């Protein structure tokens, strides 16, 4: 299986994985000891001819001291490792000027890059080898930002922003999940981290910060007009147009993203069409209502959204 806690792609994550491996070895040893003792006792001291009567032993204080002191010393050493890893894998983050702001919403993630003004959703891009000072917020209930191959996860709590460092060390795409139960569609509150070389990242960030492409064909223009008039604009933002709401995800460069609905469907024309026809059948409970669109209008909206490269 790829993408597990055993394949970290960050220095902080590797430190935690190292601690996890040490802890697991300790656990396996203790489990093996207990299992061997229990099974040996069960077989060796089973009732059988010649073993009808057990000696009436009430205890032994040296035995008690042994199995109190040894675990105590073992755990004390484990605690010092824990303390070291706690410090090293989650250093202090200055509270000003974060590089990345992560905002949890029911049920999607918003990613803001304050330095460039880029805003996106579902796919968060990061330059490899960087250290991103990240602020994590919530717009409604408690969520949790978690990428198994990075370092720690962090709760997104309404009214109380959290801070952590993210240090992507390998180029690649990594799955992320909301890890705190947050209501109906907690399952489809996923995201992807795309770690790129710095040049690629900067190109992406410049593009992402730029306003949306203008509609070209007649169908796209019709779709754009529908978007502004038929309520889409009351929830969504498309930078460079009059749509400035931030209830739902920013759609300025929607066509660049690989999935819609926070991972529920891949971003294809058929899927966009199905989603716009009735998102409630695809992601039941999602806050986007069934807009009762006819097929012509839906096709036009799909054409417009697909032009938002």
């Amino acid at each position: 299986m790829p993408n597990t806690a055993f394949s970290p792609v960050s220095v902080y994550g590797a430190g935690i994985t190292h601690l996890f491996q040490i802890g697991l070895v300790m656990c396996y040893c203790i489990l093996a000891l207990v299992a061997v003792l229990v099974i040996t006792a069960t077989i060796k001291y089973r009732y059988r001819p010649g073993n009808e009567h057990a000696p009436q032993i009430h205890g032994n204080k040296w035995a008690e001291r042994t199995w109190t002191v040894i675990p105590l010393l073992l755990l004390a050493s484990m605690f010092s490792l824990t303390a070291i890893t706690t410090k090293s894998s989650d250093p202090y983050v200055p509270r000003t000027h974060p590089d990345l702001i992560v905002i949890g919403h029911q049920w999607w993630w918003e990613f803001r890059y304050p330095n460039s003004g880029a805003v996106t959703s579902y796919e968060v891009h990061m330059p490899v080898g960087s250290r991103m000072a990240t602020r994590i917020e919530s717009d409604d209930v408690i969520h949790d930002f978690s990428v198994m191959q990075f370092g720690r996860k962090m709760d997104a709590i309404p009214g109380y922003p959290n801070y952590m460092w993210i240090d992507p060390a390998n180029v690649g795409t990594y799955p992320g999940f909301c890890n705190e139960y947050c209501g109906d569609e907690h399952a489809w509150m996923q995201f992807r981290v795309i770690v790129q070389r710095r040049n690629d990242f900067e190109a992406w960030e410049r593009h992402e910060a730029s306003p949306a492409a203008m509609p070209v064909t007649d169908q796209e223009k019709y779709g754009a007009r529908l978007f502004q008039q038929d309520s889409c604009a009351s929830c969504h933002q498309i930078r460079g147009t009059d749509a400035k709401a931030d209830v739902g995800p920013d759609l300025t460069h929607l066509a660049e993203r690989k999935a819609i609905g926070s991972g529920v469907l891949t971003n294809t024309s058929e899927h966009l069409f199905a989603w716009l026809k009735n998102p409630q059948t695809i992601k039941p409970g999602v806050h986007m209502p069934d807009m009762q669109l006819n097929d012509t209008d839906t096709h036009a909206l799909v054409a417009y959204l697909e032009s938002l490269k």
Partner: protein
Amino acid sequence: MSTTPVPSGSMPVSIEIEVRSRDLFGFFATVDHKRIGLMYMMLALFFFIAGGFEALLMRIQLAWPRNTFLNPDTYNQTFTMHGTTMIFLVVMPILLGTAIYFVPLMIGTTDMAFPRLNAFGFWVLLFGGLLLYYSYFAGGAPDAGWFSYTPLSEKPFSLHSGMDYWALSLLAIGTGSIATGLNLIATILTMRAPGMSMRRLPLFVWMVLVNSHLIVFAFPALNAALVGLLFDRQLNAHFFRAFGGGQPILWQHFFWNFGHPEVYIMILPAWGMISEVIPVFSRKPIFGYAYVAASTVAIGLLSFGVWAHHMFAVGLGHPWDLAMSATSMLIGVPTGVKIFNWIATMWHGSIRLTTSMLFAIAFLIQFTMGGLSGILFAFAPIDWKLTDTYFVVAHLHYVLFGGTMFAVFAGIYYWYPKMTGKLLSERLGRWHFWTMVLGFNATFLVQHVLGVAGMPRRVYTYPDLPGWGILNAISSIGVLILGVGMLVFFWNMIYTAHHGEAAGDNPWDAWTLEWATASPPPPYNFLMIPPIRSRRPLWDLNHPGEEDWRQHE
């Protein structure tokens, strides 16, 4: 086997009157601790079917990726009800019921200190259980999880009345539990038979005593939080609502201040059962009695100082995380002491592999696994990786199912003859045991792997990532095996109640006082209590010249 002398004699008049009230109303209006204990156990078994059915629904939904058997809202209601039911209406009642039934017998008295309060505790619990399930008919079951984190459990995020029923029902259950906890403390401290000093108490009674203190001190924190939540929901208060100046994290502090001691409330009496079963079937006294009892007290005290280990991902800061990490690891030491004492009790024994003992042996290994994965969560950075993934689901079920429920099964096979006068079938018992071991480990072992792969908890479905489908399918098949095992168990109880072999007073040649009376015990419990000069009064009676008190007291 039993040689307990029970001299015949005339009963006091008041007891004869009690014996006659055997009609249905008399059964339900009873204040007899044995009948109330049985009612607790029947309630627990009833809700075990409900909670098990909910688990089955969840595992069907999760059997393969993107399944649409349950919609998300139904799934969320189902896991909320599963957790709440199993904790408050199954594990606690079966443990409290066993305590209510056996503590007065084990300390050699006639009833609880406050028999009417005892009945009150049961009826309030039943009321709470019915209130919880009534929510289905009143607009929908609660759907914010058994932990009901704010603000998800607040308006406007949970609008239907399920959360209100949840809060009211837990208030009722909590109040009843506190009453029962106080009652058990009073009973154990004041009603012991002559000679039954605190140092001679059976370990089950010791565990119940510590457990009752946990109940009395932990539940008020939950009740306070529930009242706050109801104020928020019904009166528009702002205890836990971030947008009105409230503190959503405050709920978590309250909840886990209750919730972690609650974890021990759900395991201490089970440890007590193990501490009775293993010595009797190893034909040896418990190894290190004082250490087993003292480690329980230590765990009871420590359990109030570890709550924020449920909150490592909240971002409380390193001082909090490390303090709670240290206390949580510390709990591992007295827990390990118990495991080693139980193994040492088996060592040099003459082990009778009854079904009860098999469950106790499986408990030792499975509970150790649950305890060890728990230790990993005490390493704060590991918790930052694994919390709220399926690793936690695996961990908690190894403790509560592989641990507590296996101990409860050991206890049921051990005490069923005392409660009914009939022995459970050992043949069916073997089937029950092996299907449970297979089904339990098939269900939950693979969930460790899913957790390490990053599968979150409480998701109604999941993407088809490599390996996720097959592991979830194995887990779902495991639940079917568990279901078969439970059917065997229920059939065993029903069948043997009518056709079982008569048990006699003391089928296991056990040593504590509950075996010194008839099976089932008469309403007045004992005609005569044997002299209590050690921890094993019946051993002393049957082994003249080798009495415990000659050796160590």
